[in-house]
């Protein structure tokens, strides 16, 4: 393992541990308001200061890390499952279904992601609770991100379907779902795992973009994206650079994941 990958691994595991131990490390609740300490600078009581509502920024960062690091992989899992189902069936069944899936993926990929998210997000009821908004935001991300992975899974399934061991299995009388489940699915696992890991940083960034536009996770539930909204106040950032902590955390984790994945743009995105 190279030095860069070791550092990246440490960063990602460190962030995961902070998220897991949020309840132990944070002295205060993420929603508690200290009205006597609004916009406070970093101190022993508040290691990263407080926000404009007097909430402990350190506690919010830890709980926000937990939200982002649990729900982004959950959304990635939904996307991967959808991609496996749609792409796998298209590659395995072929014919009209494959052509339909290819046309649908082309259409989905030509729709700019954020425009689509805004359109679907606007359909959600107005009285959505903050906790429901957390799940709905990541559920939407998971449900709308299937197109690119599905295309890759379909391509991998096509390659596998024409390989010699599948021909041999067919010649031995294995067919239908049994062939798919026993022969194809285990060999698709590395492709699906890669798609799962690639989707995580994409969803973390998408949530951050949505939250900065006021359409992500609702207050008072913290997320990295939601905490970045403080950065709109430039003078406040100059006054208290600790406000940059969520951004530093987000960049470190997303960069770490990218280094670990060795993300390379092998197709025109």
């Amino acid at each position, binding site marked *: 393992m190279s030095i860069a990958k070791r550092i990246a691994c440490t960063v990602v595991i460190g962030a995961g541990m902070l998220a897991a131990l949020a309840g132990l490390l944070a002295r205060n609740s993420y929603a508690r308001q200290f009205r006597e300490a609004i916009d406070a600078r970093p101190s022993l009581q508040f290691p990263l200061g407080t926000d404009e509502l007097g909430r402990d920024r350190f506690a919010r960062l830890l709980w926000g890390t937990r939200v982002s690091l649990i729900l982004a992989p959950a959304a990635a899992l939904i996307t991967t499952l959808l991609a496996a189902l749609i792409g796998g069936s298209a590659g395995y069944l072929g014919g009209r279904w494959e052509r339909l899936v290819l*046309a649908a993926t*082309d*259409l989905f*990929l*030509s*729709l*700019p*992601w*954020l*425009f*689509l998210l*805004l*359109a*679907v*997000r*606007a*359909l959600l*009821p*107005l009285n959505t609770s903050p906790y429901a908004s957390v799940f709905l935001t990541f559920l939407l991300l998971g449900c709308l991100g299937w197109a690119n992975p599905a295309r890759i899974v379909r391509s991998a399934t096509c390659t596998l379907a024409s390989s010699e061991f599948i021909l041999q299995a067919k010649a031995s009388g294995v067919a239908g779902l049994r062939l798919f489940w026993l022969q194809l699915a285990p060999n698709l696992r590395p492709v699906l795992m890669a798609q799962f890991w690639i989707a995580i*940083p994409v969803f973390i*960034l998408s949530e*951050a*973009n949505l939250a*900065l*536009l*006021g*359409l992500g996770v609702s207050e008072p539930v913290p997320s990295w*994206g939601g905490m*970045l909204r403080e*950065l*709109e106040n*430039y003078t406040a950032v100059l006054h208290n650079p600790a406000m940059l902590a969520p*951004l530093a955390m*987000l*960049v470190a984790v*997303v*960069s770490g994941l*990218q*280094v670990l994945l060795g*993300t*390379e*743009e*092998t*197709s*025109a*995105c």
Partner: protein
Amino acid sequence: MFLVVVRQLRRVLLTTLVAGLLGATLVRLSPGFGIDEREMDSRLNRESQSAARAEHTGERNIGAFYLRYLDNALHGDFGYSLALNRPVAEMIRERLPVTLVSLGYGAGFGMLAGIVLALATVSAQSVPLNLISSAMSGLCLSLPAAVIALFFLWTGASGRWAIALAVFPHVYRYSKNLLTEARRSAHVMAAEARGVRPARVLLAHITAPVLPQLAAVAGVAVSLAFGSCIPVEVLCDSPGIGQLAWKAALARDLPVLVTITALVAILSVAANSFADLALAPWRAAK
């Protein structure tokens, strides 16, 4: 060539129809659709309220609703924004040029920076340059477009450059991988062994064979630039369609939102089709 043009036109037309259908379905399913304010007007008697309700009866059938939506859209009528109290077409006409100029600059400079830096990295074969350019692209890739827009807002620079910075890392990584792969090919090694000048090796033996793939990134750059124009226009207060889409999303103004989404989808498909068409003669010659 004729067949290629027909195929691309069919693609744009199909996208328009499907995007329109999806848009119409979203509008039809939106909360409060088909409810007329007059139904709650106590001054109106029961017959008048029933008449007001009856005016929307035809809209309840999604097929009929879509056909009418399509017919109106073909005549340039994209509906009326209740939140902004203006016709949708009028607002798009005003704002689209602003976004197109930003996209032109953003996608253009993003592509230029990405390809030039990739060419420099591959040709120089310098470890520090490779490290610096990879770190730069990695950092840009790890920042949400909205945060890049904030940095530009702080420095007082135009938001267009934020779009360029959001497009740059994708183009750089894709171009670098393509060029690195081309550099490793046997004919390049043969040319270098024969003492062909480095500039000629780079242009004629490395870049020329991958030119179609490099050009294909133009369509993707437009799509990426469209994606980043929402946060950039919102945070930099640029009056384009990205900002309009955001306002519509906050106000749950679905007619505006679906029209913009469909329009952006058509423009993205058209950009991809244009890139494909531009490369068709080259592919045919090959």
